[in-house]
């Protein structure tokens, strides 16, 4: 009997479902960052607004990369419905705390996906995921460093103005 399902698609049903869930999570992150950009802009934190807009674009790019992979492998990529985006934040610091929490959740999700790939011996998808795992190092680093600015500079006086000014300077280098 021909292995018709395998002929049609490289990835298993379970991996396809997890990848589609990941697409949704990336879309959610992208929208959340845009919401953060909006809040920052309205509260006078222009540099942070730019920072979160860029982050939003990056998450969107991640979403499309996953989307293309599912389609290229013969799977059914699902355009996600994104709801329940937080639009109001208690303060400047909370925005960055939420950003770090979102990145940690994304990293955990990729780890689960990678674990499933290893279990199924889907080394093709595992190799594809390596790019994202590496990317998460940078994403988490940047989010953590941004939050650390609150400790280093402090929020008193012109502290928040200083923090906002330095957010865009955060870069990650492997070397």
């Amino acid at each position: 009997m021909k292995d018709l399902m395998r002929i049609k698609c490289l990835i298993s049903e379970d991996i396809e479902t997890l990848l589609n869930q990941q697409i949704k999570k990336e879309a959610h992150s992208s929208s959340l960052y845009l919401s953060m950009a909006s809040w920052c802009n309205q509260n006078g934190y222009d540099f942070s607004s730019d920072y979160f807009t860029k982050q939003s674009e990056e998450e969107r790019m991640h979403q499309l990369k996953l989307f293309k992979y599912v389609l290229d492998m013969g799977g059914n990529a699902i355009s996600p419905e994104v709801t329940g985006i937080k639009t109001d934040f208690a303060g400047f610091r909370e925005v960055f705390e939420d950003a770090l929490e979102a990145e940690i959740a994304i990293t955990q999700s990729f780890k689960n996906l990678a674990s499933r790939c290893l279990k199924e011996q889907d080394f093709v998808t595992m190799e594809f995921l390596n790019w994202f795992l590496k990317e998460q190092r940078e994403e988490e680093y940047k989010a953590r460093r941004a939050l650390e600015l609150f400790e280093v500079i402090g929020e008193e006086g012109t502290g928040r103005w200083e923090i906002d000014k330095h957010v865009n300077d955060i870069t990650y280098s492997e070397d």
Partner: protein
Amino acid sequence: MEKACIDINQLINVFSNYEGAVYQSDKLNCFYVDFGGKFARYNCLSLQKLKKVVEEIDIEALLLNTHRADFELVTFNGCEHVYLLNALEIIALKDLLHGTFTMFNLNHIVNDCLYRLVY
């Protein structure tokens, strides 16, 4: 599609239960679902969609809801077949499709072991 139009001997029985059967045609690269008085043709994608739609039906909610009959219309966009099924038939169709996809996985492992990994 009527069963009489298809040469059943050319089809491979993938999985059967007490209510129906799923066949595979290696010649046409498609599947036939013999269920609920229908002998319907599906390709890979549409069979996966059918499974998803059937799996998403909440049997418990269907049985506990006293405001409606325990019938469900089973179809999806782009599907030319419609099934009107009661709770027992839905359970049978769930079982049939679950068994079918388990057999696909088994067939995949067998193909890997017998042909793809042995040269």
